[in-house]
């Protein structure tokens, strides 16, 4: 009964989604010409190389045009990490020993991950440092780093991150972001304004504040994801 109802509902939703989607032609160019943009996307494409000198338009959007979103996004991550800590916090009772229920991993995995781990970290760092030039950026890089840490956690059951360090990284990165924003407000009248020299397109040191923010974001994301993973994994049964 319930199943039928759900299927019916899904059918209606599918139909209702089909209707508007059928009017959106796939692959059609809705941006308008660059000279006379009808969407903001086209405008970004036309302005980014010249005014921000950032090769990756998406990065430009994420960090600059819509940097405020990203600030919010970072906050969401921060919130997730904080919230997780708050939700999963347990007051340790006297004499309560936590015993990990996970078994140690195989030798192969341990050796392999030891090998790959630095490489992953380097890759992550690369991705977020070059976020304004190549595909990728702070989030992606941070995520890559976090996967590396996850790998280590899975391999070594005693692998633990120092939460104090994570907190410092998180906070400092966040503060950097917010401070740069406020600096923009002070220097250039608007919050998050790109007040630094933009350099030339496709240079590593180009795009003004964009790479700095992205690097901060990268650190922050990495720290937070790692922190979340660590918190989730360190759930112990009594």
């Amino acid at each position: 009964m319930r199943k039928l109802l759900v299927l019916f509902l899904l059918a209606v939703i599918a139909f209702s989604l089909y209707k508007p989607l059928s009017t959106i032609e796939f692959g059609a160019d809705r941006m308008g010409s660059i000279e006379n943009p009808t969407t903001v996307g086209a405008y970004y494409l036309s302005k980014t190389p010249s005014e921000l000198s950032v090769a990756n338009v998406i990065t430009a959007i994420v960090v600059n045009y819509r940097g405020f979103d990203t600030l919010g996004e970072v906050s969401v991550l921060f919130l997730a990490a904080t919230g997780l800590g708050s939700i999963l916090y347990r007051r340790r009772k006297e004499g309560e020993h936590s015993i990990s229920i996970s078994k140690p991993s195989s030798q192969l995995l341990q050796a392999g991950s030891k090998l790959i781990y630095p490489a992953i970290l380097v890759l992550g760092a690369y991705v977020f440092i070059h976020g304004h030039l190549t595909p990728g950026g702070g989030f992606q890089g941070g995520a890559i780093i976090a996967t590396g840490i996850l790998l280590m956690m899975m391999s070594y059951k005693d692998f633990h991150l120092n939460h104090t360090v994570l907190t410092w990284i998180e906070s400092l990165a966040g503060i950097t972001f917010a401070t740069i924003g406020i600096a923009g407000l002070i220097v250039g009248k608007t919050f998050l304004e790109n007040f630094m020299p933009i350099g030339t397109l496709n240079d590593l040191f180009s795009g003004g504040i964009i790479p700095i923010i992205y690097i901060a974001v990268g650190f922050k994301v990495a720290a937070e994801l790692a922190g979340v993973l660590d918190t989730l994994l360190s759930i112990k049964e009594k």
Partner: protein
Amino acid sequence: MVVSPVHFIAVPLLAAFLMPILAKVNKNLLRIVPGIVLTYLGYVSVVLMNRVATEGTIIEVLAGWSAPWGINLVYTPFTGFLATLMIAMSFLIWLYSFKFKKVDDEPALKYFILQLMLTTGSVGLVLTGDIFNFFVFMEIIALSSYALTAFYRDRNGAEAAFKYLLIGAFASTLFLLAIVLLYSQVGTLNMAEISVRMHDVPTSMKVSILVLFLVGIGIEAEMFPLNGWAPDAYSQAPSPVGVAFAALVVKAGVYGLVRITYTLFGIEGSGIGPFLIIMGGITLVMAEITALKQTSLKRMLAYSSIGQMGFVLIAFGIGTHEAVFGAIFLMFNHAIIKGLLFMSGSYLVYNTPNKEIKYLSGYGMKMPVISLFFSLGALAIVGLPPFAGFWSKLYILLAAADGALYGLIALILVVSIIEIVYYFRVVGRLYFGKPAEGSIMRKPTVGGMIAMSILAIAILVVGFYPDIITGYIDAAASSILNTDEYIKNALGAVNELTPVENIIQ
């Protein structure tokens, strides 16, 4: 540094990022910092409210890109009013929860951060002029609310939070889907710009988008079939969080609903008005009759809160200046009154099993001041003169009468009677009988008393002299109703995407 709306978001975020570090330095800083931040923001609010009253809407461009390319903050009298209200309420919540938890407790750290983020999210949501940014702030609110709901380490907290999360995730999903469809049609995310371009969107598409938006934001605004999460969350969250829900989260939701229906789609002749009236009416009735049967005080307050939101929706649905005025007034009143009720109510039920009303007999003697506060709140929220709640109810009823909606008036009043029944059941009980043996009264903290006193005084002052606030609300109502004005202000003179003559139609 010149005061500007972005301070509302940047400063608390900075503080929130800073707080984990500060906590390492000195635990006490943790409690104090939000107070400082909120005090500063209060100052900002005052300055900006004055400025907006004299100079009109303030537009803050972010990242140096003016709308529609960048994100902008739009500080109209309406958004400004709400932001100010939220800041003020947050400050009181902070006062109330100042001694909330022992500071060396790990969660206390999280608590203050989360509360601060909740405030930031709500204010940001109200101020932003960008639909996707709106979505982001919605998520900030949502995440901090989830975490705060599950703050107490009992089973119910987690359950409530999970329900909230499940429904909240739906809300954000639908909202995002709506944004997707919207973007495909108008190619922009700035709300003013969207509003201008909305005319060209085909009707069926428009309806789909509208429906998705309505359901998405209706969840946050506690519209009837979508509000299953609300009573659980309200009743299981720590009481300052309950206050925050009533004063910030729901307000933000209603704001979103109003912004989307009024500005993006235009309320006149679109069928949205009657829809809001009907849904508001159903919400009101359902919530109030459910509240009538509640045995737990906080749950009762939660349903009552939902009911009030239904009432607000009705008023916004009527859509005349008078009605919108009443609705905003009601939002204000609901924030302060429900704040007082939650604050005092939580002290009352602090030591009762299950927070049940039936154990409250005779607390009027034992906790006279708290009981007085609660009674005051109850009197005010059911709209008895001369307290604050009366005026908003009166204005909404007047608006309904002007629209010849007599059935609606009768409905509202009948529901008000239900409301009176359950509130006065509690008030009556407070002054009846002897308290049960061994019931321990929780002594209110100084900060809590101050916060409650401020709210009580506000209720009385607004009740006796509503003109103290009506000027602001009038301006707010005008600003929300005048979409053209909003578009003109938000987009400013620089608008290359849309010819200027199209803006004002």
